[in-house]
């Protein structure tokens, strides 16, 4: 009898432990499969895509600044940080931890785009117009991320090269092994996506903290320039210059680009705030008395010499080489002043600026037609115009454009790519030419099961 009642008791307890007992729900998360169902979800996921651009390894700091460290614009600091030293010494190995983080962060953005694009057609309550806009913004960001990966990891200057990057246009499983596309295929994907985006974007929205029609035209101009398709580069640069409300600032106001937010020169500027900070200040300035070891990227003495030869250039003021303001361990190098604001640390990422559009057009148009654009930038920055005789050859004109880009965009992440796409890695940096791109991270090779090819030379 009693045994029976015990068994009955057990049964009751068993009954209490209904199946629900083991169903726990996370209060902070929503599973990927349920996340994007309604219009509001899609809007939230779009904001999330922008959030991924803000990762510390991407436009939150490392993407632009690492390129500086790899070029002649910057040297590196840090405490015996081998990965960082490798960047400063322009001798990166596949095991480099910073490079691995960079690689993954850009694909993180792409993966977020892919999920949103996959869910978007089924989202309920979304007007077609808005659906198209979200699609366009997402595609443009996905294309930009691919292009950014290509610039660091693929032979972007040679459309005939086999060393493109894995193009990821679908939601991937954890076991999917990526394969590298050729450079030509990668460009085709990027251009097609940007063109699709251009067709779908709302032409009336010109907020610069979001991808707008001018961002897409600007990105197309940039991609065509790298691809050496100059006619198309000019076409899209024209579109930004003639149709956008953006304008160049007066020479005396150049600093406003960095000390204010969303200046009239910005075409695409990522917005940070105190609760959502970027790493730019910490990596380049940190505090008044910072030692070299505390900082990641310092303005090189070479960049100082470069500006010495450009009297009147107002952009020199955003570099501080003064011994009285920099710790003794930093000299003869200096610090950029583009990312000040030690307390708020909400420095934006300047992804696309109007000056770049002009310089793209100048470079694409070439010596005779492009000189006006070059001079427009020069005169806006306190310099004299160049006469045609000052740039007698195509080569000297290209030198002048690249110098202008260096003066304009130092610490904004263009220099390394400019050197690579114009074949100057060896001559300027004095390292092997293959170092114009980074090695594919060793973990990609290890997990690639033999299907992931390493870049030549590494």
């Amino acid at each position, binding site marked *: 009898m009693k045994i029976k009642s015990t068994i009955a008791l057990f049964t009751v307890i068993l009954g209490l432990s209904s199946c629900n007992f083991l169903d726990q729900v996370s209060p902070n998360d929503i599973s990927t499969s349920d*996340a994007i169902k309604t219009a509001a979800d899609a809007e*939230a996921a779009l904001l999330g895509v922008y959030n991924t651009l803000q990762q510390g390894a991407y436009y939150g700091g490392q993407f632009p600044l690492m390129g500086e460290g790899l070029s002649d614009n910057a040297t590196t600091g840090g405490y015996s940080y*081998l990965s960082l030293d490798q960047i400063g010494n322009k001798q990166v*190995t596949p095991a480099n931890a910073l490079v691995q983080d960079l690689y993954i962060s850009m694909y993180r953005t792409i*993966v977020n785009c892919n999920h949103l694009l996959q869910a978007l057609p089924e989202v309920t309550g979304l007007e077609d117009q808005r659906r198209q806009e979200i699609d366009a913004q997402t595609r443009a960001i996905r294309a930009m991320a691919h292009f950014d990966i290509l610039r660091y990891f693929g032979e972007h200057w040679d459309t005939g090269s086999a060393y493109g990057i894995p193009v990821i246009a679908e939601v991937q499983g954890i076991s999917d092994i990526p394969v590298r596309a050729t450079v030509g295929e990668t460009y085709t994907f990027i251009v097609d996506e940007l063109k699709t985006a251009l067709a779908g974007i709302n032409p009336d929205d010109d907020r610069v903290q979001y991808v707008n029609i001018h961002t897409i035209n600007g990105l197309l101009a940039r991609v065509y320039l790298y691809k050496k398709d100059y006619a198309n580069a000019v076409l899209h640069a024209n579109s930004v210059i003639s149709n956008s409300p953006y304008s160049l600032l007066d020479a005396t106001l150049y600093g406003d680009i960095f000390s204010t937010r969303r200046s009239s020169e910005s075409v695409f500027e990522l*917005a940070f705030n105190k609760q959502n900070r970027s790493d730019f200040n910490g990596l380049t300035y940190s505090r008044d008395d910072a030692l070299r070891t505390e900082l990641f990227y310092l303005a090189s003495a070479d960049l100082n010499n470069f500006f010495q030869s450009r009297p009147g250039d107002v952009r020199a003021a955003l570099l501080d080489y003064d011994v009285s303001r920099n710790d003794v361990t930093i000299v003869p190098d200096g610090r950029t002043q583009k990312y000040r604001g030690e*307390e708020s640390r909400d420095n934006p990422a300047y992804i696309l600026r109007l000056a770049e559009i002009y310089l793209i057009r100048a470079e694409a148009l070439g010596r005779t037609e492009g000189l006006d654009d070059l001079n427009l930038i020069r005169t806006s920055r306190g310099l004299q115009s160049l006469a045609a005789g000052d740039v007698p050859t195509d080569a000297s004109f290209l030198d002048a454009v690249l110098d202008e880009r260096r003066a304009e965009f130092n610490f904004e992440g263009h220099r390394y790519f400019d050197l690579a796409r114009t074949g100057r890695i060896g001559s300027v940096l004095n390292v092997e030419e293959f170092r114009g791109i980074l090695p594919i991270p*060793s973990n*990609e090779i290890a997990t690639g099961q033999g299907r992931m090819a390493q870049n030549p030379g590494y």
Partner: protein
Amino acid sequence: MARKQYSVLVWLLLLILPAGIRAQELSISGTVRDAGSKETLPGVTVTIKGSSRGTTTDTDGRYTIKAQGSDVLVFQVVGLEKQELPVENRTRIDVLLGESTSLLSDVVVVGYGVQKKSQITGAIASISNKDFKDQPVSNLAGSIQGRVSGLNVTTPSGTPGAGLLVNVRGNLNPLYVVDGIPMLSESNSSLSTAFNLQGESVGSGQTLSSVSDINPNDIESIEILKDASAAAIYGARAANGVILITTKRGKEGKTEVNFNAYTGIQQAARKIKFMDSGQFLDLIEEARRNDLAIYNSDNSAFGEDFDPSVLTEPLDNFNLDESANTVWLDEVTRTAPISNYELSMRGGDARTRFFTAMSYFDQTGVVIENYYKRLNLRVNLDHQVTEKFTAGLNLSNTYSRNRRSFNDDTYTGVITNAIGASPFMPVYESDGVYSAFENYQASWLSDNPVKSAKEIRAFTNNYRVLATAYGEYAFRPNLRFRSSFSTDAAFLFDNQFKSALTADAVAVGGEAYEAGFRAITWLNENTLTYTKTSGKSNLTILGGITEQRTQLERNSITGQGFPPSGLEKISSAANIVGATSSGTSFSLLSFLSRVNYAYNDRYLFTATMRADGSSRFSKDNRFGYFPSASAAWRISGEEFFNRNFFTDLKMRVSYGITGDQEIGDFENVSFYSAANYDNQAGIAIRNIADPGLSWQSNRMLNVGLDYEIKGGRFNGSLEFFQSSKTRLLSRDAIPGTTGFATVTRNSGEVQNTGVEGNLTAYLRRGGDFNWTMNVNGTYVRNEIKSLSSDEIYLNAFSDLEASHILKVGEPIGSFVGLKYTGIDPQTGDATYEDTNGDGIVDYDDAQIIGRALPTFFGGLTNKFSYKNWDLSIFTRFNAGNQVYNLMRATSDNLGYSNEGGLSSVYANNRADLVNRWRKPGDVAEYGRASFVNPNFFINSSQFLENGSFIRIQNVNLSYTFPEIGKFSNMTVYLEGQNLWLFSQYKGFDPEVSSNGASTDRTAGIDYGAYPQARTITFGINLKL
């Protein structure tokens, strides 16, 4: 109503009142002799059962004691069989004590029950209070360190209250079960993180152990379930072994009041000796001279823009006359007091038994400002309600407060900065303000170490309640049902204030961080036990159902900009710059069963089965089944067995499967979580998941032998084990095109194979002088059998190069780096193996250079007693592993200063480096001093050191006064902890693991770990 109040009163009285009033006493005397030799036995304790009154026999084996006619006398001496004799109104009782087989009749706690040691078929080690009491350690795992074979407990740093690395047969992080409650044992403080100056987490710092919430002296016994047969009853959480902790309970008889106190001092056991100002100046000037000579003969290594004047111009602030000659390690360490006070009561009558204790532990850290204080309260109560029904309560309450050492064990921490600080820099300027580290040589520093210690005030406050209420009903004497409800509630609060004086917060005007953590576990366990004895057969069947749910919540807030007046709480902040709040939960539903069958006490069988369902896995693969079976044969029970030498011999074999679910919650689902942009709320993908995620399983074979020689004079066991952990729950590298570097999934296999043994020998006993020796040793070989992708590089700190590698055929925790081939006597250059033969020595030449986990470890205890004196000496050893002393890239930099720009030097060097290469032909341990280019390679075997050691862990000398005044017993003792270390290691201590106690994959790194203390205490123990 009145009745109810009355019964409450009775309960209270039962708790408070000591045992009853004594009747008329007799004086009893007699002689105690050895049953074999018939010699008289001195030093035998004679006590009255159920009381603590007693005496010992004199040199002629005679005793006299006062007792009642109805009392029972207990005669006891080490190594001989205990005897209990009723007085029965006699006044003379002579006794013969025979050889003991006592160990075999000892009862051992197993999961969900107890068992006689002789009937055990699995590998269980048991250690009782008397073996670890009174040690000045805060963590119970520290008290069993080195005492048990197969168990390797490593102290990763000297931080008070720190977590320990507990490894059972090669498997890290066992399950702790305290009086039946599977205890949350993780480090829950969010201050256990290594931050860089950007405030980003770069890795794990020193963890705190929540196992420290249990006061070691409240513990009656600790059982370590080592093999699958013993552990499988805990199923899905038993893969890494189980540590069962049983606290003291009440005993029938006179109430025993026990007061115990010790107090003492601690000091950093070993300090690293650094160069003084003169030696440092010599080094730097020599480095510059060496470089200049090289530059003048061949400047190719110096780069195009190199300006040789940096080699000749005087360095700022590098003037011997103005040198403070500061010994930084002396400035940040101190002689620190430690003390512990404890009061406990234990007693009861036939129906109600209680144990209650309170204790206060106060340990000051050997690093300045740092301390750990803990208050414990415990009540354990058992009451027999009716003949068939027993009920009881366990309640344990802990409060602890820990003043943390900033960035403990990692860089930018107090010790790490002190290791590189320049002797030219004073602690304070003449006007009393902290000297500005920026103005002095040594750019390694991130701040003045004393300033960091004093001006970064971080505390972890912890409240913990473990409570169980149970009822047990015996339907029949052999059929018992037990049900219990338990809760484990942990509340932890972190706060950290960085004053505006510190480099970390100067730019923001001070920064405060406050964080809270709450974890509540509810557990219900129901078991039914049936025993049947018929003839020579003995059968026990156990069945049970348990349910557990755990909910965790965390929140944090960061504020910046504080007024200068000592207002340090968040409400004084000018800006709130960050706030988080998150929660997680998991539940577990389990069915368990065990069958023990013994025939003729000679053939023993055990089978267990547990089914665990966990919310951490998706519906289809939620339940895991964990069976085990074992058998033992007591050969000594057979007729044919000659018991002349082995008086008892038992062979055991077991095989079974245990599991592991110790991953985070919700790792089986890929999630979106909040991700804002442009001041608007958005969502972004947080993780990538494998929906097929399921249990990790550990299949273990164990073959054991228990032996007793000469009736227990020598006894011990020998074990062989082989375990295969398959479907490892691991953070597995996946292609970065997924947007993530790793995914948690089941992959790979790791095998642990080993032998372990222990021997207890009563080398001398029965006279005034007794000597007992216990030795244990374990050899474990760990090997990775398969991985989803081979050769995975792991970084101990995310901003350092990969320090470890996972590679098939190698053990977990293998170090990777360049192979150092010594100093070239001609040039003084450090040389390395160029494995890829490309003529360039760089990280591409990295290879496996060592291992973090020891292969052989054990302990040796010698206990001596002479009359009332007792002396125990406990030694522990460890061999076969290396330590990656990454601090030496700073402390052995040989003058290399390019990290900080060449206008300043980088860091001071160890005094040892005076033995460096000076001129061609020198055969030196350390290379040529070099200012511009490093003459070392941080990730190389140059900084890999032998981790083997022998440590005199504990020496205790005590004197016991048998009866003194009102006290039935008083013991005074002098104890030394970590008295001596035999090791070649160049850092503080080879027993180290800088990035916390949570992982073995990146273990064995020394990156400025907190120095371990040597402790001397004086204690007193009073019994009433």
